[in-house]
């Protein structure tokens, strides 16, 4: 009979599966309680699920590893659902914290909704991840490249098409530039990197770059599209005479252009990137817990790298008693701690917050009330 023959197959099957599952978790996934001597002395335990901007994904991965090292009984998950998805899930209460490339505004009522979600108090918004966006290129015989803002905009807007164009030559009097077509590579997906980059172009060369700040690359400007940061890096690396923009941490062996700021050309070092938050004005009219910036791309300040992606953490100033609040507070505290910022710099190549800003931000996290 069919049912019995199926039963005959299923019962031992389930038994075998159960045996397999109960017998072994992954080798590296200890059973929390038994592995408790792994270094941490904390009493924290449980699971914390946040998510948001995918720009933070690598850094969050590093922070999670670092945090779980200190608190072996804790599992943290960061869902790279995108900034919009992160904010949405934070407001709906699914995430106790979210990462976002943009701060909350009331253009679509998000700030109000988030305030409601935090039971009437304005949400915490703090910068936690700063990453310089490097202009990477792969041109034979060119080891050092300087680009002024207008030239950069011209290249990516498809108006400068040859590597030996006079604009580029003017920026690089000493370089031998080949007579070759420029292959500009951009992100084909929507991304905060593209938004920050186009925001910069719009600010510094609005007459050349006329499309404004966009999350999705305007296709009329042409160029090769590539998926994700890794896609851009590999497209530039494997293409000839290519140029693209990507998180500096992922530039690898590719050439990195110096960008014109004032009289100088500045390389995308972490220090130069972190500096932009010092010279940029804070957005006015925000709650005390909200430290957000409108980046001053036009800065003339020496040694400041102007093309930077800033990402924020969004959280509530108070949580109801329970694991979730405790964990969120502890995890956010770790991220903005000195160790956390170092971990991010070492493993994900982000630029650590300046000490002054870090202390201020850490103070806000420290003031989160649980219970």
């Amino acid at each position: 009979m069919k049912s019995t023959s199926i039963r005959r197959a299923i019962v031992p099957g389930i038994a075998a599966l159960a045996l397999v599952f109960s017998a072994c978790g992954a080798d590296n996934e200890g059973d929390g309680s038994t592995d408790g001597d792994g270094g941490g002395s904390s009493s924290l335990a449980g699971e914390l699920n946040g998510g948001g901007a995918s720009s933070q994904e690598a850094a969050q991965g590093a922070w999670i590893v670092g945090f779980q090292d200190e608190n072996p009984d804790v599992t943290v998950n960061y869902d790279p659902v995108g900034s919009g998805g992160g904010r949405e899930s934070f407001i709906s209460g699914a995430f106790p914290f979210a990462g976002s490339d943009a701060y909350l505004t009331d253009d679509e009522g998000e700030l109000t909704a988030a305030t409601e979600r935090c039971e009437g108090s304005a949400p915490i918004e703090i910068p936690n991840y700063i990453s310089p966006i490097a202009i990477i290129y792969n041109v034979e015989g060119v080891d050092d490249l300087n680009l002024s803002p207008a030239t950069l905009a011209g290249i990516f807007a498809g108006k400068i098409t040859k590597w030996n164009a006079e604009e580029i030559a003017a920026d690089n009097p000493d370089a031998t530039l080949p007579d070759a077509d420029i292959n500009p590579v951009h992100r084909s997906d929507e991304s905060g990197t593209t938004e920050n980059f186009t925001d910069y172009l719009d600010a510094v060369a609005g007459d050349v770059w006329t499309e404004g700040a966009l999350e999705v690359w305007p296709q009329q400007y042409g160029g090769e599209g590539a998926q994700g940061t890794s896609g851009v890096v590999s497209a530039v690396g494997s293409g000839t005479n290519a140029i693209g923009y990507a998180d500096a941490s992922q530039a690898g062996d590719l050439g990195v252009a110096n960008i014109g700021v004032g009289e100088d050309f500045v390389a995308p070092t972490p220090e130069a990137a972190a500096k932009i938050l010092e010279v940029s004005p804070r957005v006015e009219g925000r709650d005390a817990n909200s430290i957000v910036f409108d980046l001053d791309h036009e800065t003339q300040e020496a040694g400041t790298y102007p093309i930077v992606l800033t990402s924020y953490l969004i959280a509530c100033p108070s949580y109801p008693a329970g694991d979730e609040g405790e964990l969120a507070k502890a995890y956010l505290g770790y991220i903005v701690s000195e160790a956390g910022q170092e971990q991010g710099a070492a493993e994900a190549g982000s630029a650590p917050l300046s000490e002054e800003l870090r202390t201020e931000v850490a103070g806000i996290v420290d003031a989160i009330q649980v219970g």
Partner: protein
Amino acid sequence: MATTEPTGVIDTETSTKRGDAVFAGLARSAGILIMVALAGVGIFLLVEGAPAISASGEQAYGKDNIVLFVWPLLYGTLLAALIAMIIATPLAVGVALVISHYAPRRVARSLGYLIDLLAAVPSVVYGLWGRAVLAPAILPVYQWLSETLGWLPFFEGPATTGRTILTASIVLAVMALPIITAICREVFAQTPRMHEEAALALGATRWEMIRMTVFPYARSGVISAVMLGLGRALGETMAVAMVLSVSGLVTINLVSGQNPSTIAANIALNFGNASGTKINVLIFSGLVLFVVSFAVNFLGRWIASRGQVKA
């Protein structure tokens, strides 16, 4: 499944009837469930895709309305699938002929199995292969094409990357090949033996025999095979998503770094990061894909079933 007590051969009349009725009902409802599921696919996509119709601007990925968003993707989907068919069809017919008519019978089985193995490779592995192996290997060919045949709009170039729509189409062709081959093989093998032998007896060479007896007989079968292969190529996601460099342009330039994307690949690449109305926009494009591939498959099966009636 059995809900009545099995009572051996001497069933009472009522329990027999009940058993039969229950079993028949179960079987029938399973059949109906399949129809419901298919309808469900359409309905749920429609429900979740509907809010996209009013989407514009940021929500529609920077496009003014949903049509402008879907059109370039649809174009890319059709273009990639079409090129894939142009590549795959002659190959598949040739391979099917080898298996059905050229190879010695003993070898033919193993050859058929080899082709089936092509179908067994998961699409994500094809994507990995296309991205890491095929694209770099084929770049010199594209550069040569754009240099020598650059006056053709298809090969205008500039060839700066191997990850073009032509590469994606080649991968799609490889993936659709086994399907087309399998069906062609079947129809070729169904050619009446008598026709073939009559042709040979009249002194025809093997090729003349194939041209005069096999092809006329198999025409509708081959057409339906191509339609089904097209259906596969239209909906294939991962291979395209991993291989193609996308810029969303509508172009017939096949070897440049600026390529249209396909609906399926676009969904796969953007879904994880989408929120709010953007999800509806992507689902709506999925609905378009569903309708197109349903129509193509429908047509393919219809032609196939008509061919069978004729035979």
